[in-house]
């Protein structure tokens, strides 16, 4: 049941109380209005202190001890956005009424009070109060949603592997680093790396279509399935074939993910990879040469069940690095809406020979930031670099 709207009438004239009780008797009996009465400003403040959910004040201006304008100023200091003050005064007191309106009073009524008119003014005030409550409720829901998004963002960051503690036992053979910057609170990009056996490490980069919560959920499912299949399957192609089969079953409304998945032999430097609709990674040779890997021969993941995914190989020599990224890198926009582009990326990478994986990624990130300037980040920006020592 809706609770009664609490109305405080502040007037030093006793008949006002009787008048209110008489005129609004139906609303009082039905529990729509609950009236409180004070005869001066001091008394009114006491009542407001005891009953802070009073939301309408009918306020006389000329009263002993504390006048209506002073009380209005004190009520304003309570910072209750729902509180509506209706000034009640004589016609000849227009200057004070004007001042009250300028000081935030909601409306006014002229004495002798036309009760029908006052009734209409109270109803108008109630409509506004309800609107304020509705807005406050929506604001609090939004705040709660923002908190949920922050939690989701933390979870998303948490499920990505920690780059600083990756494969310490292979630190003499391998240098790996990654970063993911979501365009929104949460993103649809991901990277992953995990050990398969003593000599093999799998690494994955993926980009789920769309952004926001839907993409983030599909990203979490994709990452989990690919990791789980990567542990079981002997090849990158088999991992993608199996993952695609499962993701096609989970894909609601044609969600999909582009994936580059690879298995790296830490002893030989051989990389066996499967590119499933993802943009081609770049190979940064130790002499500064940059090669773009061939385009994907496979379809993206999560749409067509029963498709077999092909794989390829490449050889990393000592000092070579494989630079994987999502299209948020090459499609980052400048304020003039120019794309960062593959050529710019290649030029930057060419100057990174001999640098650590972390340095490579940080240099590219800085270049993108400089390029984008004040332009809003429109897509997730994710990079994964694996370098053979």
């Amino acid at each position: 049941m809706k609770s009664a709207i609490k109305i405080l009438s502040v007037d030093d004239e006793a008949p006002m109380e009787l008048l209110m009780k008489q005129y609004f008797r139906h609303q009082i009996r039905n529990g729509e209005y609950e009236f409180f009465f004070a005869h001066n400003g001091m008394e009114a403040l006491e009542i407001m202190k005891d009953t802070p959910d009073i939301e309408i004040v009918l306020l006389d201006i000329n009263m002993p001890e504390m006048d209506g304008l002073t009380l209005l100023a004190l009520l304003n200091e309570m910072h209750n956005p729902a509180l509506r003050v209706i000034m009640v005064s004589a016609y000849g007191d227009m200057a004070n009424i004007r001042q009250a309106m300028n000081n935030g009073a909601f409306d006014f009524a002229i004495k002798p009070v036309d009760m029908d008119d006052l009734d209409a003014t109270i109803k108008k005030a109630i409509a506004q109060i309800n609107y304020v409550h509705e807005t406050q409720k929506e604001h609090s829901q939004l705040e709660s949603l923002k908190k949920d998004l922050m939690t989701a963002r933390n979870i998303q960051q948490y499920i990505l592997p920690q780059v600083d503690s990756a494969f310490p036992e292979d630190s003499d053979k391998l240098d790996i680093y990654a970063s993911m910057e979501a365009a929104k609170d949460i993103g649809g990009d991901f990277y992953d790396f995990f050990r398969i056996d003593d000599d093999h490490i799998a690494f994955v980069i993926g980009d789920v279509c769309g952004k926001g919560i839907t993409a983030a959920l599909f990203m979490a499912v994709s990452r989990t399935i690919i990791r789980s299949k990567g542990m079981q399957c002997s090849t990158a192609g088999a991992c993608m074939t199996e993952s695609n089969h499962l993701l096609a079953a989970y894909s609601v409304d044609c969600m999909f993910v582009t994936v580059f998945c690879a298995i790296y032999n830490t002893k030989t430097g051989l990389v066996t990879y499967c590119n499933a609709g993802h943009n081609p990674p770049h190979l940064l040779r130790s002499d500064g040469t940059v090669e773009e890997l061939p385009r994907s021969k496979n379809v993206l993941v999560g749409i067509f069940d029963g498709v077999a995914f092909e794989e390829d190989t490449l050889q990393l020599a000592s000092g070579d690095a494989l630079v994987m990224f999502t299209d948020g890198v090459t499609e980052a926009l400048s304020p003039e809406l120019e794309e960062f582009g593959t050529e710019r990326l290649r030029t930057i990478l060419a100057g990174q020979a001999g640098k650590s994986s972390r340095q490579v990624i940080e240099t590219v990130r800085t270049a993108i930031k400089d390029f984008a300037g004040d332009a809003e980040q429109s897509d997730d920006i994710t990079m994964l670099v694996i370098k053979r020592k």
Partner: protein
Amino acid sequence: MEKDYEVKKEGSVLTVTLGNKLVAINAPALTDELAAYKDQDIEKVVFDATNLIILSSSGIRTIMYCKQKLGASPEIVFVNCKKMVLDVLDLVGLRPFITFKER
């Protein structure tokens, strides 16, 4: 965003005339409009891509929606597809699933 596409149905063929982009800001609305044809035995969806220059992953999702959700895997046709759009479809491996025509 102002609607920049048009959907027409003639028999079992759905023709979608696209604007210059099919991206996150207009693709979901087009998908919603296409959903109305879900149970109408669509056999072919023709995308008139004469004006299309930008196709994002959201746009690809709309195309896949037609393939997966309208009828029994209808034929997807792209008319007058520019190289830059063809490159995107090629990159994500969708070229074999689409018929390309010039007009």
